């Protein structure tokens, strides 16, 4: 224990001394250098000393006034992109950014243009990144998405494949747990994209094979359940589609909300002609999601002008969080699992650490005062950004509920109409065998498991559930089918 304390103390002292040396060197340049490259040199010193967020304004100022980027500056900007994300050239306008052709700026500009829906321009900018560069993985993913949105599926698939391959290589080569995890995330995202293109091309079996590559322990796994459920739905395996959507009801996945899963479940029951079951799901959707949407709308309305409310919810102690609506608590938990949120949160922590390090410096001067003021505003900016992110997530979620309420409304009308027809054709209804679940109705492949559902979810069974419901559709209940059912019953 003593050794640990001593090591921490020593490390602190070394860190403090190096920070002090960096600040001193940067101050010397600040005071004496009158050249055009003054800001660049200050930024370099700061980056060298680990003051990444403090370096941002100097890099921005230099790029604002100059258009040449040498090797040293390129490497500094790359370091900043890795350490601070898109904040590295935050204050620069797109027109100015277009004049630079280095990969790090191309990635930031390309992403920015993509988010503004300027797809062709974004594609052209991202194409400047060489295939061998480390940022080419993200570039391939975005370029693939652009081609995907433009319905050029062959090109999109090629980009996704390149992205998955390169990410896989980097995953093995990367040092550090965080880096490794990020490349795994990219690899899985691109693999899922390949499967989605297959789904869009109606090649459902091929898509399902690709989805099998995603490990059950993966962060992305809960999200692919929806995709897989759609694949089974279009393959008319409605029982497995219901089984997959019901997985979201397990306690392990309680923080994941997918209103779309409810719609898909109701649609699957509908396609099995189980009108009452489908109606139950529709009614449950309104009972379950309506009050939640209202609660969220109220919170959004009350705190729409606050720059910190939602971030404070994240930082709130467990007791305060317990008092929150469980739904909002779960939504925050789900947001915490997003990569961007975590990166921004890590940035916020680093910026705060940097500020406390600056405040510990002994020799205070106008330069350190400038650094502190800049960092203060950077911290406020990151906080507001995270707060906005959570707010936006909640907003998107409310919109999702509204969108699917419309789908459910249409489905309910359709169900009521089917039920009315059933009442008119009572004879036909009487002929229907009201058999519920049976193993004979489960479609199973060699690589698919089958588990009985005994009222409890088991982690290793998640994602492999399938219902065994007999379709009640008249077309399918042909004489041959009925005879088969009778034979099965008599055999039992």
């Amino acid at each position: 224990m003593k050794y640990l304390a001593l090591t921490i103390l020593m490390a602190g002292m070394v860190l403090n001394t190096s920070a002090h040396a960096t600040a001193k060197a940067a101050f010397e340049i600040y005071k004496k250098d009158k050249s055009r490259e003054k800001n660049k040199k200050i930024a370099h010193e700061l980056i060298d000393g680990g003051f990444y967020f403090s370096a941002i304004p100097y890099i921005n100022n230099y790029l604002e006034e100059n258009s040449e980027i040498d090797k040293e500056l390129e490497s500094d900007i790359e370091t900043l992109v890795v350490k601070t994300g898109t904040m590295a050239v935050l204050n620069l306008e797109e027109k100015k950014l277009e004049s630079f052709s280095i990969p790090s700026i191309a990635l930031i500009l390309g992403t920015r243009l993509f988010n503004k829906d300027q797809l062709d321009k974004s594609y052209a900018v991202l194409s400047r990144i060489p295939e061998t560069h480390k940022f080419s993985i993200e570039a391939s993913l975005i370029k693939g998405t652009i081609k995907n949105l433009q319905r050029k599926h062959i090109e999109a698939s090629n980009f996704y494949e390149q992205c998955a391959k390169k990410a896989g290589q980097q995953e093995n080569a990367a040092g550090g747990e965080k880096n490794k995890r990020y490349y795994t995330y990219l690899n899985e995202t691109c693999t899922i994209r390949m499967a989605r293109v297959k789904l869009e091309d109606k090649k459902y079996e091929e898509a399902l094979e690709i989805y099998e590559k995603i490990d059950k322990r993966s962060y992305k796994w809960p999200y692919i359940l929806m995709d897989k459920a759609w694949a089974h739905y279009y393959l008319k395996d409605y029982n497995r589609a219901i089984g997959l959507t019901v997985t979201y009801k397990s306690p392990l996945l309680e923080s994941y909300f997918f209103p779309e899963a409810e719609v898909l479940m109701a649609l699957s029951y509908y396609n099995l002609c189980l009108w009452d079951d489908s109606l139950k799901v529709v009614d449950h959707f309104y009972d379950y999601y309506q009050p939640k949407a209202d609660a969220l709308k109220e919170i959004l309305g009350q705190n729409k002008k606050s720059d910190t409310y939602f971030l404070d919810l994240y930082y709130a102690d467990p007791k305060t969080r317990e008092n929150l609506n469980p739904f909002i608590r779960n939504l925050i938990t789900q947001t915490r699992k997003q990569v961007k949120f975590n990166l921004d949160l890590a940035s916020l922590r680093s910026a705060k650490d940097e500020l406390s390090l600056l405040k510990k410096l002994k020799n205070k001067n106008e330069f350190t005062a400038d650094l502190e003021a800049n960092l203060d505003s950077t911290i406020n900016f990151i906080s507001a950004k995270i707060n906005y992110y959570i707010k936006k997530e909640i907003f998107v979620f409310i919109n999702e509920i509204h969108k699917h309420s419309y789908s459910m409304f249409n489905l309910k009308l359709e169900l009521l109409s089917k039920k009315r027809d059933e009442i008119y054709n009572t004879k036909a209804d009487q002929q229907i065998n009201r058999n519920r679940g049976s193993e004979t109705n489960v479609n199973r492949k060699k690589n698919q498991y089958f588990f009985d559902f005994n009222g409890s979810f088991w982690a290793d069974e998640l994602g492999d559930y399938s219902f065994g419901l007999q379709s009640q559709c008249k077309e399918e209940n042909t004489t041959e089918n009925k005879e088969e059912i009778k034979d099965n019953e008599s055999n039992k």
Partner: protein
Amino acid sequence: MKLFLILTLSLSTSFNAMAEEKKNTVYKYKEYEVIDLGSMEVKGQIVAPGDLTVNERERKVFKRSLLEKNNFDFENRREIENLR
């Protein structure tokens, strides 16, 4: 002179009006008329609607648009927004 002209004009119009009042208008109606409906005949052909004129069709069933998943644009865009 003007006064004389006005007087003659007004006198001539009043004499005309008096002359018209004296004419008796006589209206004459048919005293008796018989219409024999039985003897009336309408010339033409009786044509019953055949198979070609009546189209037999099933009752229109209004299909409501149920949710379809044709693409993953929404999810894909959100993933890029969440990248960095």
